[in-house]
């Protein structure tokens, strides 16, 4: 008898095959609303609310450094009130979404990959299947949706705190009057500055959670395999953020 393994050519293995296959299955799982809806809120709290402190920490120091850097560059060349413009634009359009995304790629991406990887190697994912649950609908969809919805919220906090800390630094370190900082902040402000940053943040959330799910659910080999999956998820998440950052700059600017 001819064995199927001999008659069917093996699919080319590789990262993009893996991404494509799992993305397709995730799309199907998205339709299974009754399975993922009860888990979504928990995941939004775990992935989003739990990430606010780290985003605030990053934003405080980013705002301070930006204000000082702008002052250093502008002194004797450009009016100092433009420190507000630079801090506002840079924090809202680039640094808040990208730095928050990178930090959350570490926190959220590794968390998802390690959790799902552990479930995979301890047969909990198989157990879910035997209970008639689609593991993607129960595990992956709520995490990807939660990250997509909550990254912009966390980023919005980072924007607010980043600009605020830049303003405080300008006022107390550079001795730039508050109204001068605000003048610079408002002079070149557009609503696009905010939504551009938030759209990017949402896409970063999708990418980071997707990488975590892909690497977690495909991990094997016990504890070492789970560790490798978590590391790979973080690296891929960061890489995806940089690629998406460039993509949105080309498309939206």
């Amino acid at each position, binding site marked *: *008898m*001819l*064995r*199927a*393994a001999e008659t069917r050519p093996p699919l080319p293995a590789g990262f993009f095959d893996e991404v494509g296959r799992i993305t397709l299955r995730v799309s*199907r799982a998205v339709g299974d609303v009754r399975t993922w809806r009860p888990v979504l809120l928990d995941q939004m709290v775990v992935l989003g609310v739990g990430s606010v402190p780290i985003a605030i920490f990053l934003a405080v120091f980013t705002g301070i450094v930006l204000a000082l850097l702008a002052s250093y560059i502008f002194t004797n060349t450009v009016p100092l009130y433009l420190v507000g413009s630079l801090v506002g634009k840079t924090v809202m359009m680039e640094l808040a979404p990208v730095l928050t995304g990178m930090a959350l790629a570490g926190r959220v991406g590794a968390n998802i990959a390690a959790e799902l990887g*552990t*479930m995979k190697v*301890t*047969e*909990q994912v*198989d*157990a879910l*299947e*035997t*209970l*008639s*649950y*689609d593991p993607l609908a129960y595990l992956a969809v709520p995490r990807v949706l939660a990250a997509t919805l909550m990254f912009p919220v966390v980023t919005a906090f980072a924007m607010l705190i980043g600009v605020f800390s830049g303003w405080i630094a300008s006022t107390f370190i550079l001795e730039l009057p508050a109204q001068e900082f605000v003048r610079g902040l408002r002079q070149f402000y557009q609503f696009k500055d905010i939504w551009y940053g938030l759209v990017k943040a949402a896409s970063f959330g999708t990418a980071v959670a997707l990488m975590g799910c892909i690497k977690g659910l495909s991990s094997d080999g016990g504890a070492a395999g789970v560790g490798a999956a978590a590391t790979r998820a973080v690296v891929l998440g960061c890489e995806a953020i940089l690629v998406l950052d460039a993509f949105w700059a080309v498309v939206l600017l």
Partner: protein
Amino acid sequence: MIQLRDVYKSFGPKEVLRGFSLDVPEGKNTVLMGFSGGGKSVTLKLIAGLLAPDSGDVLVDGKNVPDLDADGLAMLRREIAFVFQFAALFDSMTVEENIRLGLKKQGMSADDQRVRVRESLALVNLEGTEGRYPAELSGGMRKRVGIARAVALKPRYILYDEPTTGLDPVTSAVIDDLMIRTRDLGATGLIVTHDLRTSFKCGDRIAMLYEGRLRAIGTGDELRRNTDPVVTGFIEGRPTTAAGVA
């Protein structure tokens, strides 16, 4: 009835099943024994649709499992429960939540779920553990919760993967008794093990898987009388028998 017909399954270059056939009759416990890494657990995963065979048929009530779509597989899994080797309980859920998860999927009301959880835990003598997490349970208790989770679904078939491995003799005996009880309650069992005491105590029929094929099958007494050197070597634990492990 579960039937495997000429099933082949490989993982890379390793051929695990090579034309394996087996019938699992209803209302009985069938034990599948064999060497570690010989394809016993793979057989269970093929039946539950967790793996697909390279070729051959895996029939449950006449339906070929690899041919089923997602909906068909979900329907089939309402009839089949799986007891995993290390219980595979969900760490983040309490014992009660672990058992209720499958019941919820079946659309059972919350009150009925609570009753069923209590009944299942009573069956495995673990009343009062509803609020505990898997990390707070011993290995034997975890396995019993795994059995309770399976039994709660009132399945027609229960697949046991190494149910007594790693347990002390007394706890193993408790698990053995549970498997006999679930059979007496009407569930058909397929028990994968290399524990001979469990095999002869729980198995109405015992099959031996060797080098990816069915080597012997019969009642416990028939297997004890079998003169095949592989079978006698396995039962007597002769090291030379292991040379032919797939």
